[in-house]
């Protein structure tokens, strides 16, 4: 999962040179598979599906939470349906990330509309056991706020790139991130 390692670099966890080479190799593999798949090699397409699924699933789970599997399936279909429209295979991961985030937000919003009653089930903030559960804290944020947190703090994108992925102006992404971090801290501290 190259972009996960990329994200590690983004938050400065000190990935060494060897790990960087490993990331490059895996990125190269993804790009090579995408090129071969676009030329009609369906076995390469199959291997690309194996290669990208964990990355897409991770993004979708972070944003869509319990609906992560549905979001992953829909993001995979969206990515692979439009693979032929990817102009530059070198841009594969950024392109995949953009589609995955948008699909995850869409699925999470749809699920929230379908289950409005569950909002009342959000646990009490004072519960120390639940306060320790990061998923629980994340579940209190809106899908849009989770998306901006994932892009900035997990994927390590800068504001402009995150805004581009979300399709909003940089100022909107910045204020969303501010509010998301604030909500997260508030929920986390109970």
């Amino acid at each position, binding site marked *: 999962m190259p972009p996960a390692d990329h994200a590690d670099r983004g938050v400065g966890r000190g990935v060494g040179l060897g790990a960087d080479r490993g990331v490059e190799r895996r990125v190269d593999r993804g790009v090579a598979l995408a090129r071969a798949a676009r030329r009609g090699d*369906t076995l390469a397409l199959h291997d690309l599906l194996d290669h990208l699924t964990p990355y897409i699933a991770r993004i979708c789970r972070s944003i869509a939470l319990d609906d992560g599997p549905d979001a992953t399936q829909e993001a995979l279909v969206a990515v692979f*349906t439009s*693979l*032929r429209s990817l102009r530059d295979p070198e841009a594969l991961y950024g392109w995949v990330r953009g589609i995955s985030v948008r699909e995850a937000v869409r699925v999470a919003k749809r699920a929230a509309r379908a289950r409005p009653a569950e909002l009342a089930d959000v646990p009490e903030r004072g519960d120390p056991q639940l306060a320790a559960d990061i998923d629980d804290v994340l579940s209190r944020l809106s899908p849009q706020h989770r998306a901006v947190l994932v892009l900035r703090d997990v994927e390590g994108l800068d504001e402009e790139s995150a805004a581009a992925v979300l399709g909003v102006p940089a100022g909107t992404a910045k204020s969303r991130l501010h509010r998301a971090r604030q909500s997260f801290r508030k929920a986390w501290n109970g």
Partner: protein
Amino acid sequence: MTPSNVGRLRVMGAAIRGAHVVEGVLPSSFDEVWGVMGDLEGGFGDFQPDMRSLRVLRVDGDRVEALARSRYGLRAHFHGVLRPGWGWLQSRFLVVGMAADAMGDGRTRVALTGGVRVPGRPALVPIGARGELERAMRRLGERVP
């Protein structure tokens, strides 16, 4: 958290222009169904239309290489992947994809895709493919115990 095998086959079908994915539910356990589908030298050749025989040449982990003969004497040299509930085989001219998932109630969801490749791009010749796949699905149903 990863998609089901049938879900993965839908993704492959979405990626390949002209591909049809035919799905069905069989009233048999996963082991019984996959026992037919995944048996490349046995049940697989029985339910896939126009496949007279298939011989596995090499297996390396989940990678397989196999030689198939059609009823009309044509040969296809397949390379691909075979895992429990999942098969993807490709020759120069053909693609065969199949998936199966246990439904948790003793039944099994299965999906099939494949057909004749269009050179140079991820596409299959759409003509007649759906009918062939539906025929394969019927034959599979007849062969599962």
